């Protein structure tokens, strides 16, 4: 820049002046753009109200509550075993993962632990529900950018995982399989071999998606360098899961806390990405799906013999106390703060859902972006409406 001729400098100044003049002449009035509550780009019923200046967002505010079902109030009028039926439906793509922290919290209060076999099977089903969840994200990602093929592939391969979950739990979508003290049933015969075959298919699915999407130039140019969230902002907002790890924060509750699950028996890598942009978030999720396949494959070899249910009273009364249990769910850190008064049902359950925090950063993250980038940023933040609104 130093050895510019005077002529070049003058040219530069002239072009800047022309730009400024153009901006003044073409100054646009502010416009309010309403996306939702039912819009293909919002995965359900999130409504986003943006104020635009030309093509740029100056202010954006999500409007939630279109899916508010009042879980926290309803848990107060259910018994402990009935609560799992409800909380299944919070994050409806990875239902089994929702039950686990609640059951663990109840077990913590009762001071019991599931038998080792149940713990390993729980972890396998947990990871399968993560795969079922994130594979749909990977397919849906293309749709947000105009590529329709990946979603068909995702739905095809997701069916294999759902079949596995169904054959083990009886529920294709909402298993309601976890019980206080263990699991409802043991695994069916032949399930382990079948799961191995499906995991091979899922790895292929990840490869296909990587080829189709992540190497695609359009995809890269629409996600790289867009929607950057720095690590300290991410922590302030309480982001979790892949959104936090994509900002370079190495935090994964599967590895970072002692919990009565079998993640410590598996060898897996917690992927992080230094960029913090939309691409990083998508990429981390892709790697996590592969890691989940790896965890499942390793745990299939390590299922110990024994019962799947420990001894619990027939009518479960949870002793008085308070417990907080959080796990690394497909969308991020999901936790239950359970207060019991020694009754059949909980006194109060505070449900900490990952998407609620993940989406609370939207007003910050959308400031100054262009309208088409709203879609990619929202898609890469990845939320599920039931998980935001509860």
């Amino acid at each position, binding site marked *: 820049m130093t050895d510019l001729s005077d002529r070049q400098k003058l040219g530069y100044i002239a072009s800047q002046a022309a730009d400024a003049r153009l901006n003044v002449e073409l100054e646009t009035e502010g416009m309010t753009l309403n996306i939702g509550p039912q819009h293909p780009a919002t995965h359900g019923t999130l409504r986003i109200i943006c104020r635009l200046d030309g093509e740029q967002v100056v202010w954006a505010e999500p409007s939630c509550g279109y899916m508010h079902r009042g879980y926290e109030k309803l848990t107060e009028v259910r018994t402990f075993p009935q609560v799992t039926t409800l909380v299944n439906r919070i994050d409806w793509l990875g239902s089994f993962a929702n039950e686990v922290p609640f059951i663990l919290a109840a077990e913590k209060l009762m001071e019991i632990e599931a038998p080792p076999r149940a713990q390993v099977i729980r972890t396998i089903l947990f990871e399968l529900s993560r795969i079922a969840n994130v594979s749909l994200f990977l397919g849906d990602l293309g749709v947000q950018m105009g590529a329709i093929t990946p979603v068909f592939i995702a739905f095809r391969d997701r069916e294999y995982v759902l079949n596995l979950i169904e054959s083990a739990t009886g529920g294709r*979508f909402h298993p309601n399989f976890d019980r206080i003290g263990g699991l409802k049933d043991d695994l069916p015969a032949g399930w382990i071999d079948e799961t191995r075959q499906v995991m091979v298919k899922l790895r292929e699915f990840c490869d296909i998606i990587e080829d189709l999407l992540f190497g695609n130039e359009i995809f890269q140019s629409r996600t790289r360098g867009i929607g950057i969230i720095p690590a300290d902002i991410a922590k302030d907002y309480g982001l979790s899961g892949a959104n936090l790890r994509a900002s370079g924060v190495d935090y994964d509750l599967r590895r970072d806390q002692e919990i009565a699950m079998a993640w410590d028996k598996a060898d897996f890598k917690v992927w992080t990405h230094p960029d913090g942009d939309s691409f990083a978030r998508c990429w981390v999720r892709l790697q996590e799906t592969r890691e989940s396949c790896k965890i499942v494959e390793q745990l299939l070899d390590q299922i110990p013999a024994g019962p799947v249910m420990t001894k619990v009273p027939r009518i479960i009364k949870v002793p008085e106390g308070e417990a907080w249990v959080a796990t690394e769910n497909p969308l991020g850190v999901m936790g239950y703060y359970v207060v019991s008064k020694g009754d059949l049902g909980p006194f109060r359950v505070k449900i900490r859902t990952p998407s609620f925090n993940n989406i609370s950063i939207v007003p910050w993250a959308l400031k100054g972006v262009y309208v088409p980038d709203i879609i990619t940023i929202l898609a890469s933040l990845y939320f599920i409406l039931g998980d935001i609104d509860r």
Partner: protein
Amino acid sequence: MGLVANGRMPASLTKLFNISRSYSLWVYQWGLACCAIEMGAAFGSPRYDVMRLGVIPLPASPRQADFVCVSGTVTDKMAPAVKRLWEQMPEPKYAISMGSCANCGGPYWDSYSVTKGVDQIIPIDVYVPGCPPRPEALLEGIVLLQQRIKNEDMAAKWRGEDYTSLQATNSERNAAKVAASFDADVESAEQQSSSSDPIVVGGGPVE
């Protein structure tokens, strides 16, 4: 259209119209909650492939849709939007309510923010029970809706009446005669669709 204005339609014309209507249904997907994913699996996945039934998903707007599939929990905050969507759709229009939440509130029957059934807002033709129903159940619901359309008295629809089946019209008209089944094709569906009540997949009464 003088015939229609009189409230009469030649039976063969009705049949032709009904068949063509029932196999070119544009469906607007009003996916709200968990059921939306199962609806997506039914409509968008290669395994279930709804297009083989003559149903076309993903219209550009509700104004181009023939029926709406309301799937998932309708909350009180969402209810006005559902109502408005329904009013935007052109006649003749039909509605499928998918899942327990849309049918009656489902697991949230005692919640303070959930509408106890989308039928409080819009008229429903087919109820698909389940939480969530499998995609196959939704496909059956669509087949039943097609039979219902094939069995509809279009003249009554054009007069602005609610759903009236041909059998109902026939038996009214020929009170002395025993109403003959209109078509051998729909004989199996006759039990369900001979009345003008909504259909429930898998049977059962609508309370």
